[in-house]
């Protein structure tokens, strides 16, 4: 792959306890990673994931707090149910399962997010650019309109 | 094709000359736009007639139909006042001087000024729909047109005094001997020197004479609904009562079918209709 894979990174704003980590995410993310901070993983509507996929992301990473450590009690568990199913569903229509990754971050973890993102990037490079599911940037072609 | 060789769906480039809040609650903002190309400006003013509207276009947000609130003699710019409602008007509220914007227009028929020559005019407006009436008043009030028309009576109602638009001009008009102006607000306020009450009631109270007169009503649907019968009661013939309609619009040139009202398209055949015309159309508003 000539270009680095594009990653849409959804981050729960509470999940990075260490200021150094949060600062790294806020200011030093490589340009191929697009950060969207949400108030909780429970706020991440599957539509966000679809939007990222159709917007041209090669992979979607979601980071949230450990179960039982959610700032809003159960937001992350609701997210877990929905997003897992959404990922399975996208896989049902041919989108590789590995392109969506969920990381739970413990409050004690330091410096783990860099490693996780790097690992994800590496895995995506192996998979190559996403091609199943059309991105929005492609001009209309095919279908009944042709 | 438009005269400029572009598709009628393509906006002409404009720039914001001035942008300022019109009401004290910041819900209304006025933008004055200048033309990027002299040819566009010439084409615009050749076709322009008070009462027409334009589609202002913000790339990525869409288009919004707004009545032109300036008269041609004012200079080489076009004025609009927008209430913050949907995504386009919210974007409009974010504009500042120097920003680029697109515009299509002038669209619609405008007021039939030729037919009104020599007649007394009763102009009744409410809320932010007053903008095209403001353009009309400005047009008529200009020295080069004033003698063509008879007596000018203006009724303008808003919910509060803060929502009153174009305060500077309206204050000047109050001083003017040449026109009769009645301002109204819905609820009493301290220091308010004019009428208090809803526009239809104020119209009844003012009771303009229907003799050789034309009434123009422009306001929110509910105001129009009650003002039109009031004018009929006062003796205005349906042919001499005019109002400007609005509906959701997309293309502005009678193609997309959206503003269809019976066999008419409000964008193309309107927005100005006489009550006589309206009575012949289905009540699909």
């Amino acid at each position, binding site marked *: 792959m000539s270009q680095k894979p594009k990653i849409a990174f959804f981050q729960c704003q509470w999940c990075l306890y260490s200021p150094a980590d949060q600062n790294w995410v806020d200011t030093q993310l490589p340009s191929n990673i697009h950060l969207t901070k949400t108030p909780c993983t429970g706020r991440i509507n*599957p539509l966000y994931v679809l939007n990222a996929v159709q917007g041209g992301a090669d992979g979607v990473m979601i980071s949230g707090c450990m179960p039982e450590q959610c700032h809003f009690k159960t937001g992350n568990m609701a997210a*877990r149910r929905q997003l897992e*199913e*959404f990922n399975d569903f996208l896989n049902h229509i041919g989108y590789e399962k590995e392109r969506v990754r969920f990381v739970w971050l413990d409050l004690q973890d330091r410096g783990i997010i860099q490693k996780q993102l790097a690992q994800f990037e590496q895995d995506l490079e192996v998979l190559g650019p996403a091609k199943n599911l*059309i991105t929005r940037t492609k001009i209309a072609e095919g279908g009944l309109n042709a | 094709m438009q005269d400029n060789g572009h598709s009628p769906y393509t906006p002409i480039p404009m720039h914001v000359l001035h942008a300022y809040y019109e009401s004290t609650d910041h819900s209304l903002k006025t933008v004055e736009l200048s033309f990027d190309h002299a040819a566009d400006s010439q084409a615009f003013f050749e076709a322009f007639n008070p009462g027409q509207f334009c589609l202002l276009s913000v790339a990525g947000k869409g288009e919004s139909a707004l009545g032109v609130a300036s008269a041609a003699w004012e200079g080489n710019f076009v004025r609009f006042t927008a209430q913050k409602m949907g995504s386009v008007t919210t974007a409009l509220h974010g504009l500042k001087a120097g920003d680029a914007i697109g515009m299509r227009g002038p669209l619609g028929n405008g007021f039939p000024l030729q037919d009104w020559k020599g007649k007394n005019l009763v102009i009744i407006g409410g809320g932010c729909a007053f903008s095209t009436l403001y353009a009309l008043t400005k047009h008529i009030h200009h020295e080069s047109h004033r003698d063509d028309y008879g007596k000018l009576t203006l009724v303008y109602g808003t919910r509060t005094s803060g929502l009153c638009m174009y305060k500077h001009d309206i204050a000047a008009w109050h001083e003017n001997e040449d026109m009769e102006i009645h301002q109204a607000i819905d609820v009493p306020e301290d220091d308010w020197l004019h009428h208090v009450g809803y526009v239809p009631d104020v119209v009844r109270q003012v009771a303009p004479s229907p003799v050789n007169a034309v009434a123009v009503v422009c306001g929110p649907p509910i105001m129009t609904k009650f003002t039109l019968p009031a004018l009929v009661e006062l003796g205005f013939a349906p042919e001499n009562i005019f109002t400007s309609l609005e509906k959701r619009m997309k293309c502005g040139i009678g193609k997309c079918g959206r503003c269809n009202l019976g066999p008419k398209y409000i964008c193309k055949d309107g927005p100005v209709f006489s009550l006589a015309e309206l009575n012949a159309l289905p009540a699909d508003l």
Partner: protein
Amino acid sequence: MPDLDAIKTEVRRLLADGVVEVVVAFKPGDTPLHPQPAFFHSPEEVDSLVHNGLCQNNLATFLTHLPKTKKVGMVVRGCENRSVNALIVEKQKSRENLYLLGVPCEGIIDWRKIVEHVGEAVLAVHENSDEVTVETREGQFNLSRNELLHASCLRCAHRNPISADILIGEPLPEGDPNLARVAVEEFESLTNEERYAWFQKEAERCIRCYACREACPMCYCTECFVDHIEPRWTESGATPAGMQGWHIVRAFHQTGRCTDCGACERACPMDIKMTYLTEKLNNDMRKKYAFEVGLDIQTQPPFATVTLDDKNRFSV
């Protein structure tokens, strides 16, 4: 086959006694292939009521068109009954305001298949459990009922209404609950590319008429996600991305809510297959959370509840 007279008698009684204000059922359409959903307000109107295999709509759709407090009677089949239950769970109607006349269902006939076999000049259609007899100008044709059924009806596991106030006719043997699972597994055995090619081929015929949405009893949102202007979730036109986005999210919003009645597929003017999407979701709900839609009127769908002990891939 359901006893039409028994249904009519019961509907008349409901209306005459004032048990309900309106009964939702079917009446004959202009052609025998298209019976129409109808609203019966008085016992006299009931003469025209029909109920046959060609009644292709899920009547529960109309429940959310009617005022919440109105007393409604409805002739329901297995799938419709479960849709009604799901709507009750979502508080779109209370059970007290409903009277359900249950009719066991032998599957819905695809009129397009009839047209493919005998052409459109259909004069009358008669049916029994095995056979459909179609009268046309050219003569009489006997067709096998099973061949004419919709795909979702062939895999139906709940042919009898489960919570009807009165059941008209004898209960039928229930369908095999494994058929749906097998269908999903069969599809999943294809490779990613093959599955995507299938999805792409189906989705790109879409004309964005939203008949699938309107025909679905669970799609009752006042504002659908595709109607949003800001943010615009997916392309609004009939572009490849827009069509795919619509089909993905339409189906996904049915997770734990879809009764697999197949009304979406039947309504589609472009013959787009859609149930392979919702079936997958239903299958997952059964597998992961042992949840089946509409079996009662209390159990919340899995996405409306959370537990700590979910065992899934994202768990630690």
